[in-house]
């Protein structure tokens, strides 16, 4: 590290560098297109066209070509390539790669600065949420009345698969992506992430995966749901190959990001930043990252096996050739349940942070907060088969899995203890982040209680596979995680832009989304209780009223999210200026200028106490 600090805006653009310095998103797209075409050409002409798996082999080749070409085109492989041939990046190269002196154009490049990556993650989250949201509206429009009027069953089935996966991707990155990158290294007192180039790689790999996932809709014939159910996924058309490859590419992204997060927290903390002085959000980010490192290999494994069944005629999941669908279910849910907490923990940890700052009190019972998150992560790897209670697989394991599942309510309960304990007798500053936090508390209780029903096997034998389950996990994802994510956005928005997220618009959005969530998903609970299965493209007349209400509620959520989008767009450049520390918080990200300079600190700070000393300053001074 140099001792002099080169500021992003003042430093001049380093000269030279040739072609590699002109690479950006556009050249990435061009590279991806060229390689996709090249791989298509080779596969199309040289693979055996009479094979029954030919079209899948061609499709898989195209996806592989796309991601390789995209990496090459955007310059993701430049530095490792140079290292390989002995021409290491110079300091000037690294600073250029970090976006020095490149203004707004650095947001469209393979830029290593963690703050640029953070902003890129904000945009990616919005793109993913937006596309998934559009599909949600399409699904609800189809279900507004019985019968297939809006789109046919085949198109509808594609919608539910892609909506599910887009939203899972969006929520995995919704908090950990933007804030795990933008503020987390500063919170630790680091100049950047431990591996800045890997950081950029994780972001652009996510972009590559998202592009593949969106393409699946055009390629079509996705009759397998977002969980890629087997053996039915083996029946689906070539869109399925795109879908599987999108997930495999996505897991590369999360693995790289997870390793980076863990290494950053473990090795890059500044002097005095002991583990017990870490801001609580950093704990949430690292626990989620560690859990993701455990979970996501199953994800790429199960999709790779699906893809091999389809392209190489293996039979991992083909029942009449020695495989079985239960294997897919096991592998998928070994990933699938931990993944829920990979999504939830960063949001909850961000809310702990927000609760402390906004109620001007220390995080209540910091240790149970950490223990609760760790306990949840640990338990979550032991509960996967509760998704399989009704499959007929291993009925004797029903009791044990019910036990582990219900134990989860203890660490989950600790989240309420910490949140309510922190708010209790505080001076709760009712700003936008606080408002969304209260929304989270209200919704997360409903999510938790309905989860208890589903963990109980006799009840699950009635409710499994119905809209009740759909409503339950939407209370988790929309009602809880999304509210946490918006709270985090409102909280750290001033650090990114130097401006507040518009308070008034934010509150309109809050009320629309909050009311919309209750209308949509309470009615959906009713549909489920009445006996409507999930993933129905049409339904019997008895489900007419509850579905109509759900669709109206979904439109209200959409209106709320559009207002939020309007608020983000108008506040980004024109919002009310906030100064570097609008919430008068004590953690390091608020003590650096806004926007934080490249490499964050002139001199690395030395930490003597945790950032939650509200009410304690007076005693000591």
């Amino acid at each position, binding site marked *: 590290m140099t001792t002099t600090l080169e500021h992003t805006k003042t430093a001049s653009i380093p000269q030279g560098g040739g072609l590699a310095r002109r690479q950006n998103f556009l050249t990435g797209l061009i590279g991806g297109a060229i390689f996709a075409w090249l791989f298509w050409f080779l596969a199309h002409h040289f693979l055996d066209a009479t094979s029954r798996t030919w079209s899948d082999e061609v499709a898989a080749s195209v996806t592989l070509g796309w991601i390789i070409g995209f990496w090459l085109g955007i310059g993701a492989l430049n530095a490792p390539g140079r290292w390989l041939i002995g021409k290491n990046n110079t300091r000037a190269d690294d600073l250029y790669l970090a976006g020095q002196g490149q203004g707004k154009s650095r947001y469209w490049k393979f830029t290593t600065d963690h703050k640029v990556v953070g902003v890129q993650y904000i945009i990616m989250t919005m793109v993913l949420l937006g596309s998934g949201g559009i599909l949600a509206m399409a699904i609800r429009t189809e279900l507004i009345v019985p019968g297939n009027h809006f789109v046919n069953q085949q198109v509808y089935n594609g919608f539910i698969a892609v909506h599910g996966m887009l939203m899972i991707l969006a929520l995995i990155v919704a908090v950990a992506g933007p804030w795990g990158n933008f503020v987390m290294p500063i919170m630790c007192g680091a100049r950047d992430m431990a591996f800045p180039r890997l950081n950029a790689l994780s972001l652009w790999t996510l972009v590559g995966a998202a592009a593949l996932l969106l393409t699946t809709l055009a390629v079509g014939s996705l009759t397998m749901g977002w969980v890629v159910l087997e*053996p039915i996924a083996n029946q689906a058309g070539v869109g399925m190959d795109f879908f599987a490859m999108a997930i495999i590419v996505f897991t590369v992204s999360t693995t790289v990001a997870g390793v980076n997060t863990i290494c950053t927290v473990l090795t890059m903390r500044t002097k005095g930043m002991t583990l017990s002085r870490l801001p609580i959000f950093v704990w949430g980010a690292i626990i989620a990252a560690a859990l993701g490192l455990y979970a996501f290999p199953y994800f790429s494994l199960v999709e790779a096996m699906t893809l091999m069944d389809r392209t190489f005629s293996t039979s991992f999941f083909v029942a009449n050739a020695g495989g079985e669908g239960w294997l897919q279910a096991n592998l998928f849910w070994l990933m699938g349940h931990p993944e829920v907490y990979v999504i939830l923990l960063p949001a909850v940890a961000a809310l702990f942070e927000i609760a402390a700052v906004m109620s001007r009190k220390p995080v209540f019972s910091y240790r149970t907060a950490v223990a609760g998150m760790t306990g949840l992560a640990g338990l979550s790897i032991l509960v996967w088969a509760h998704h399989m209670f009704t499959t007929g697989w291993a009925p004797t394991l029903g009791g044990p899995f019910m036990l582990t599942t219900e134990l989860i309510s203890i660490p989950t309960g600790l989240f309420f203890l910490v949140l309510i304990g922190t708010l209790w007798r505080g001076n709760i*500053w009712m700003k936008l982040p606080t408002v969304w936090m209260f929304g989270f508390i209200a919704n997360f209780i*409903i999510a938790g209680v309905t989860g208890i029903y589903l963990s109980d096997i006799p009840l699950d034998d009635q409710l499994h596979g119905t809209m009740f389950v759909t409503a339950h996990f939407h209370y988790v994802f929309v009602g809880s995680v999304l509210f946490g994510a918006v709270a985090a956005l409102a909280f750290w928005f001033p650090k990114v832009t130097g401006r507040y997220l518009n308070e008034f618009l934010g509150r309109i959005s809050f009320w629309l989304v909050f009311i919309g969530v209750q209308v949509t998903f309470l009615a959906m609970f009713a549909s489920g209780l009445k006996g409507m299965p999930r993933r129905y493209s049409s339904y019997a007349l008895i489900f007419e009223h509850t579905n109509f209400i759900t669709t109206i509620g979904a439109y209200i959520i959409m209106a709320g999210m559009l207002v939020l989008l309007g608020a983000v767009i108008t506040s980004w450049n024109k919002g009310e200026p906030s100064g570097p520390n609008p919430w008068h918080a004590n953690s390091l990200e608020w003590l650096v200028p806004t926007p934080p300079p490249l490499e964050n600190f002139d001199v690395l700070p030395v930490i003597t106490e945790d950032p939650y000393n509200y009410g304690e300053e007076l005693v000591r001074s």
Partner: protein
Amino acid sequence: MTTSNNKKSYRGLFLTWAILTIAGALVGIFGPSRLMPRSMSDNMHLTILTMVVFTVAAAPVAAGVYASALYALRHWAHKGSEVPPSGPAVRENAMFVTTWLIVSTLLTVFLLIWGLGALAVDNSSTGKNPLVVDVTGQQWVWSFSYPGTHVSSPQLYLPDNREVEFRVTSKDVTHGFWIVNMGIQVDANVGVITTIHTTPDKLGLFNIRCEQFCGLNHAFMVTVGHVLTPSQFASWLSSQPQQA
């Protein structure tokens, strides 16, 4: 904005909690059972009872969180653009945390005991001369056959008050066999026979739906069944064409 944490103000908290608890319990007792389909078997009675018990048990907990959050909003919310003064520097409260842990553990233990007990009852078979029905799922039709009789039917016919053992399998992909009014579900898997028991105890019509996504026309993989008196069932069975 300043707090007065005297006993009088906590009365409001308690009152809110009590009202919300009662409301939650009432919803639990009257809500689900009104929405859920007509109960026609022992399993379904247990399902609805469990739903009620869990809701009533969860009501005070949920009400506690709601009441505390509302109480905090009412008494300690600080509006305006100026930063409020620091609150009390309370980091720990051993008594509160311990109580919380004990209460939540006890509640979980209660759920577990109830759940494991219900599971044992739910899965138990009387073993007394059950009627065996073979259930076959195929995209997107259910068919039922009665072993030993050469009778098969697209609709399910069951006698009243006799245990039925369903042996479920699939011809193509995984389907989910669900008798909506009897609270039983099991997947129909290719190459595997899964079994499930129930004892119908009400006469009449019931619904069967596929609850595992099975492709293009999943939504249409539905049929109906009928619970008949034993004599009606016997005459239905003998009136059916025999299939080789």
